[in-house]
């Protein structure tokens, strides 16, 4: 039996306090009525009101969401294809280069990715705007999707696919009817990861954006460079709230599915005896 030693409890308490205290302070002070962000002057929701009136932020939010939906969807399609090719594709010419190009963007500094894409877009004369940001985001996030999906592809039983092929499925049908449902959780988490990465990106978007397409992180960046502002605290609180609800409900769903799978298994065992 494991028992919690005082050392472990202290390490976890201090560690999680370090991880969460800054965000908790940010959330609390977004309800501060004073313009001075570190002096508490009573509860107020006025900064949320001002935020919703601020059209520049709303426009930026709309552009950011459009970019995130488009790039994460494209990245999921391309990343899943790439994962399938890497795990099931066998040998082909330039496979090493291909897997190198999948893993390299994961460790590439954002400033280099951003700079190189900008020079490409200027070189081919593509006007910078929403399209160029989508292309840039798709490129780096497809690699994350591919890593997530290929770890799932590696772990699942290949004989299931072979059985489908033996029973007369075309390779495409086997993928659609057998492989895809099994890897679906990984594909969904890949999409969510790509979506979050796109929502969050400042550096690459700064390089690849044009004058008419300011994304939310660029907008936030230009505001926070001037110091702490209560409006940004309010915006941060909304974003933290959405993420928290999303992550907690995702983990509840996966927990429920695990429990259900276990019950099904037990029911099947009871049925067998």
């Amino acid at each position: 039996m494991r028992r919690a030693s005082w050392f472990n409890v202290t390490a976890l308490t201090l560690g999680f306090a370090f991880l969460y205290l800054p965000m908790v302070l940010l959330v609390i002070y977004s309800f501060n009525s004073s313009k001075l962000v570190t002096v508490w002057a009573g509860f107020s929701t006025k900064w949320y009101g001002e935020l919703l009136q601020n059209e520049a932020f709303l426009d930026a939010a709309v552009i950011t969401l459009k970019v995130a939906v488009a790039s994460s969807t494209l990245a999921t399609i391309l990343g899943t294809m790439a994962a399938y090719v890497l795990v099931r594709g066998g040998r082909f010419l330039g496979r090493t280069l291909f897997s190198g190009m999948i893993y390299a963007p994961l460790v590439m500094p954002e400033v280099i990715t951003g700079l190189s894409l900008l020079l490409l877009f200027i070189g081919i004369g593509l006007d910078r705007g929403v399209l160029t940001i989508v292309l840039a985001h798709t490129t780096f996030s497809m690699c994350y999707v591919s890593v997530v999906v290929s770890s799932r592809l590696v772990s699942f039983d290949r004989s299931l696919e072979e059985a489908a092929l033996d029973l007369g499925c075309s390779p495409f049908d086997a993928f659609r009817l057998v492989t895809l449902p099994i890897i679906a959780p990984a594909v969904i988490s890949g999409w969510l990861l790509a979506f979050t990465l796109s929502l969050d990106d400042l550096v690459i978007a700064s390089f690849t954006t044009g004058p008419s397409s300011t994304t939310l992180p660029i907008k936030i960046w230009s505001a926070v460079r001037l110091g702490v502002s209560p409006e940004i605290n309010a915006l941060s609180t909304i974003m933290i709230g959405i993420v928290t609800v999303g992550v907690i409900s995702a983990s509840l769903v996966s927990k429920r599915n695990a429990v259900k799978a276990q019950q099904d298994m037990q029911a099947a065992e009871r049925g067998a005896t």
Partner: protein
Amino acid sequence: MRRFFLIAVPYVWLLALFLIPFFIVFKISLSDLALSIPPYTPTMKDGIGQMIKAFDFENFVFLTTDDLYWKAYLSSLKIALFSTVLALLVGYPMAYGMARAPEEWRPTLMMLVILPFWTSFLIRVYAWVGILSNEGFLNQFLLWTGVISTPLAIMNTTTAVYIGIVYTYLPFMILPIYAALDRLDESLIEAAQDLGCSRTKAFWLVTVPLSRSGIIAGCFLVFIPALGEFVIPSLLGGSGTLMIGKVLFEEFFNNRDWPVASAVAVILLLILIVPIILFQRNQQRQAEAET
């Protein structure tokens, strides 16, 4: 045919939007600055032969003569290295505590580590501005408790950058170490203790070596992105903190010197090749050990 299509689409995409852009950066790093749009002299317009003749290493020579760049590279290396060690010192006890926590607690603890990762990076760095500034929460708290009598100047120093990097990259350190410790067979530690090791000695001789691959992975996952970091030094480090990501960004957007910015990028990439290869090797060895 279908297989060809399946391979070709992502392949061509990555070639066009990942590999070719690098060659462009490389090419521009060898060209001269021009006062036009785009602000560099095209080196390819007179054919390949002329292009090679027009190549020069002027920008690279320039980087070695101006000590701003040397200092920026060295200071980035120092900051990345030091923050990696700090993140390890904070992250290892946490990962250890998680791996030793009661079974039913672990999914929740795991979620608590992952949650910040889904939260905006920019916002997490920004949260520290309100804490570290002169009238920030930390100084207010310390003044109130009487530990200090004048506010500490942490904001806009390297210390603030260390705090920012450790804070934002901590989950990357914790997760691989936790994964390694979770796999660890506890009977090995019991065996060491039965054979006369003290608990501390068993920890250093059994637990730490067996979690080595997790430690290495975590360290690289912090060190590699920290080296090219831009947001943290710009927001928390002020004008006094030199980091190469920031220099590149400013060279490009403020000075509009594209050839020098490209040369800075090429050298940063060369510096990163060694840690990236070591990291890949560690991951491969770990994957082989699992199968």
